[in-house]
């Protein structure tokens, strides 16, 4: 029955061609570029990139921001998602809508709002000054703190939505069942709820982490030139100084980071 084996291939061919052309080919080309030094191949671009202390600082800062934001959003969202889960169904739609609204606003608009809020004369500083907690405005904008705040706000809805759907898949009677078998509330959390929602944490964590690694607008506007991340450095190399060698190395590093983290998290998520 040759028809049976040919048809599936015919069906996936358009998608396969599309992916090869616009994804696989550019990625392979990028990899090759990052290893080409003049007309030969070598590690020259990598050694000069990693040999510069400034670049290493940017790499480390990017990792730090991504890790902190991922952890914070997990810690903040987990109890929130559990709480939302126990909201009566008729209000749940409203709560979900409230989470989704920020996602429907452009990151540029959200980031500009932070520029106004966090500034010297912004709401945050005005409140701090009035309360007498500080004597003069606190410098938040154009520091790493501003990037943490902006990124957390950007990605918390993603984590929250992922965790809510994970919690929804949690069978309603597993906790009472565990308790009736003598488990403490801590035990029913660590032995029952957490393992059953681990997949949600993994998916949410991957989304937030890769989002942080690749976000451009937020670090560019809130951090400024002083708080460079890999994405802003990449733009500088490719768009301003026309240093394609360094730009392709940064792209490969970013790709490697996201793939590694996705792989590691998936490994952990699968283990029960």
């Amino acid at each position, binding site marked *: 029955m040759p028809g049976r084996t040919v048809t599936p291939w015919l069906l996936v061919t358009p998608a396969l061609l599309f992916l090869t052309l616009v994804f696989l080919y550019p990625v392979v080309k990028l990899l090759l570029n990052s290893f080409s030094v003049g007309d030969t191949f070598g590690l020259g671009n990598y050694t000069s990139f990693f040999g510069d202390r400034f670049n290493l600082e940017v790499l480390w800062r990017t990792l730090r921001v991504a890790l902190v934001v991922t952890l914070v959003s997990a810690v903040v969202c987990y109890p929130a998602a559990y709480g939302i889960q126990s909201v009566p169904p008729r209000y749940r739609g409203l709560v979900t809508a409230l989470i989704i609204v920020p996602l429907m606003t452009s990151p540029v608009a959200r980031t500009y709002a932070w520029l106004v809020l966090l500034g*010297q004369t912004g709401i945050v500083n005005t409140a701090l000054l009035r309360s007498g907690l500080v004597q003069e405005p606190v410098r938040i904008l154009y520091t790493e703190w501003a990037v943490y705040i902006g990124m957390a706000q950007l990605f918390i809805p993603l984590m929250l939505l992922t965790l809510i759907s994970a919690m929804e898949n949690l069978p309603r009677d597993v906790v009472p069942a565990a308790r009736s078998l003598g488990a403490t509330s801590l035990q029913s959390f660590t032995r029952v709820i957490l393992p059953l929602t681990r997949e949600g944490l993994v998916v949410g964590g991957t989304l937030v982490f890769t989002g942080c690694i690749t976000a451009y607008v937020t670090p560019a506007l809130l951090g400024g*030139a*002083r708080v460079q991340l890999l994405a802003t450095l990449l733009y500088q190399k*490719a768009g*301003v100084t*026309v240093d394609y060698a360094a730009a392709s190395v940064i792209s490969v590093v970013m790709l490697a980071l996201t793939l590694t983290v996705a792989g590691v998290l998936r490994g952990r998520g699968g283990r029960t």
Partner: protein
Amino acid sequence: MKTPRHVRLLFTLLPLSLAAAQAQKTTLVVSGFGIAQDKIEKNIAKPFEAVCGCNVVFEVGNNADRLAKLTARKANPNVDVVLLADYFAKQASNQGLFEKLDTAQLSNYGKLYDFARDPLKDGTAVAFTVYSVSIVYRTDKITKPITSWKDLWRPELAGKVALPNITTTQGPPTVWLVNRAYGGKDSDASAAFGQLGKLKVLTYYNQSSQVTSLFAQDEIWAAPVGRFAWGGLLNTKKPLAWARLSDGQAGLVNVASVVKGSKNVALAHKFIDFMLSTPVQTAQALDLVDSPVNKQVKLPAAVANQLTVGVSQVAGLRFMDTSYVLTNRDNWIQRWNREVVK
């Protein structure tokens, strides 16, 4: 107001149009910035099409992207005229991507300021616009006027200054003039980097729109700024002044060149000549797109105040040699990242 100017423009260029009408209808491809493209279509592309009997197509993008495209298509160029910031144009010129300009074909060449005639110093480009870089400051917060680059280091300005990032076009001239102000030689920018490393800077901006919002939100009181941003800064309604610096304002130009291997070299020259003509330069200035490099352009004071205009302003400008920037820029970016942005 507008109709007479266009009518006049058509009459000035009538002879040109008659000559062109006999030619086949060709397409001239111009690589441009894409900023205020609607005004450029209105002031340059459409009127030029009317007189040349050709089509003008713009390909737009930032300097780096378009330079990369020119390099990639060196053997088989698809662009005839390219408009770039001087420093990027010099890189292209050094790669042999430009034709030598035949100034005899540029009827408006004699009307240009000296600095606009051969900005790359190799005969491959003319400047079509100029802008100055100086310090803008809040007159209510800073009562003693700023008259020198060194004034940025005044104690009352600590933490209230923004600098252009080194990767912007205003960055290198700032380093250059600060270096000179502190007695440094052009061959060694250590004086500038030593001082800039000590300056209490709030942030380093990448776009002029960022400076505007920094001033608008009272975040900064002073910053070196390109003149093209002045109109936007005045719109903030803050009490701002454009400093007249005793140690010099920097002048920067954008240039036009004919791409090597273009099949429309003569037409490309005509287009560049058209851009330099008094009516077009006036129209572009009235729309606040570009400051003129043509000495014959006359503008109302309200417009002139927002641009870099007139012999008195232009005479004080210091132009950085593009080869000098090209030699030093990579090193400056590295030093800036290590010694200034910490």
